[in-house]
């Protein structure tokens, strides 16, 4: 088990190394951002000076090694546009993304759990219809468009909720719904079909014929057995929510890493792009690795090789 964990962590580090090297070379292949950072009337000497000051005149390998060396000391460089250390910017934005992500997962879980179970138990009932509708629409609706629909309905027309930025708890409602919607759809769908399968199983019939209370049959015998595929999908949703935050944060002007990344990419702010990719990548790999490790604990049939 320990060897497996060690192997997974090494693998994760390797993936992160490949990721940064890839993004680093991509950024530098795409050309020199110096001219974009200076006023249009800058002289060639000034541009050259700036280039040297940023270290962009060195060969790419030297630049990459320098970057890694500074990274080890926790130095991610300075933003070209905001004149702040990247680490400071990320420290400011990351909690907002994490908060939104955790609430979105919570929202999806709390909504899909009863919805999926009731839909399966009371097949063809109004709840089943609602669950199927949510599952179907949720998977076909792009996150960014759902976000805009929510803004239109609750912000522009009804004027009930704030539609941009961060503030009180009201600012969370719409971003949470739009970020959590896709996962809600997927989880409801998987839970419903998994429950339907389990409800026909022999052990459920045995539990019923023993005269157990229906609630206990469903919650103890059926739901537990139906939960393994759901947990797999749930684990995948952590990564999906992280990626979905890019679109959600952009629409709601949410000061998080997702929006920061989009703006840095469009504004060619290399150090911020690299820093954001690094943070996002680390989170993503970390989540994936821990989900895999949790499976091993949950299901002894999965081997540690």
């Amino acid at each position, binding site marked *: 088990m320990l060897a497996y964990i060690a192997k997974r962590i090494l693998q994760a580090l390797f993936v992160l190394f490949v990721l940064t090297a890839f993004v680093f070379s991509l950024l530098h292949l795409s050309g020199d951002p110096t001219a974009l950072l200076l006023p249009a009337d800058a002289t060639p000497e000034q541009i050259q000076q700036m280039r040297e000051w940023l270290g962009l005149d060195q060969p790419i390998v030297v630049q990459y090694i320098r970057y890694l060396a500074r990274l080890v000391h926790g130095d991610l460089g300075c933003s070209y546009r905001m004149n702040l250390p990247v680490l400071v910017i990320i420290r400011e934005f990351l909690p907002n993304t994490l908060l939104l992500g955790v609430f979105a997962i919570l929202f999806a879980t709390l909504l899909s759990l009863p919805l999926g179970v009731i839909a399966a138990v009371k097949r063809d009932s109004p709840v089943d219809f609602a669950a199927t509708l949510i599952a179907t629409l949720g998977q076909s609706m792009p996150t960014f468009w759902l976000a*805009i629909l929510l803004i239109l309905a609750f912000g522009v027309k009804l004027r009930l909720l704030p539609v941009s930025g961060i503030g009180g708890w009201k600012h969370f409602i719409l971003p949470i719904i739009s970020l959590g919607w896709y996962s809600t759809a997927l989880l409801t769908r998987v839970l419903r079909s998994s429950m339907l399968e389990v409800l026909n199983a022999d052990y459920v019939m045995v539990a019923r014929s023993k005269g157990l209370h229906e609630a206990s049959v469903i919650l103890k015998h059926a739901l537990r057995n139906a939960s393994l595929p759901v947990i797999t999908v749930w684990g995948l949703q952590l990564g999906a929510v992280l990626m979905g935050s890019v679109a959600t944060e952009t629409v709601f002007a949410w000061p998080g890493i997702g929006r920061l990344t989009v703006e840095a990419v469009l504004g060619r702010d290399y150090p911020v792009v690299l820093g954001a990719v690094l943070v996002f990548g680390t989170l993503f790999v970390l989540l994936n690795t821990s989900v895999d490790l949790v499976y091993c604990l949950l299901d002894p049939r999965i081997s540690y090789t």
Partner: protein
Amino acid sequence: MKTLFPSKTKDTTLIRMLRRPKGFIGLTLVLSLALASLLAPFIAPHDPLKQNLRWRNSPPGSGPTPDGKYFLLGTDQLGRDMLTRILYGVRVSIVVALAAVFISGIVGSVLGIVSGFLGGIVDTVIMRLVDIQLSLPLFLIAMVWIAFTSPSLANIVAVIAIWTWTQYARVARASTLSIRNMDFVEAARATGASALWILFKHIRPNVIAPVIVIASLQFGRAIILEATLSFLGVGLQPPTPALGVMVANGRQYIDTAWWQATMPGVVIMLLALGANFLGDTLRDVWDPRLH
């Protein structure tokens, strides 16, 4: 899934699909949108790029213009007709998604079949590649890649294809593995059939069905991926009538011209919905175990 009429086994796949409400709706949605976008130059009421500043931000149903035309779905901030641009936008979406699905489907299933058929080191390498790719934050990579190379159609297709080949590989490998050691393949081998013959005659037909199911589901996904990239500004660029770009433009006028952001989104959703319905139905029809 209930069927409207008792099914006869000799019915073709198409008939069996059409008999299911989901299959009927899915097929109708995808085909009618595809047809409408294909005929866009003939049926679109306006020119997709022609600006008409006098009519900018007109609500749906505005008109008539001096030449007697109406703007059925309104106009955008430059007075371009929404309906026309949506028709051309669907065209772009479908072309990107089809190309991406085609490339990733072929590459993925060939790699999957090879992986399952040969086994050994080839299998290990290909499956490890799949694992590594699944552990990467692909959306981020796609964004950076397109923004720092060029937002061309080919580049976007390539990014989406690279993004989605893994699922085909897994499915094709699993099907190949399950067939490889069956008696009839064993028998073919015993009678001296070559590996290529076995691959083509016995493996291929059995891999195609699951791959097509995946392809129709991935088609819907590709539509949404392209729209999202375009919306964020790292996909197709204006003035290309891409649905994602149209939503992004309309977003700025959300409190005065609601139709600009909502209408293109409806079409994205219908396309994805149709593709998902098709995939689900095909799976039901071809794999009775999943009922």
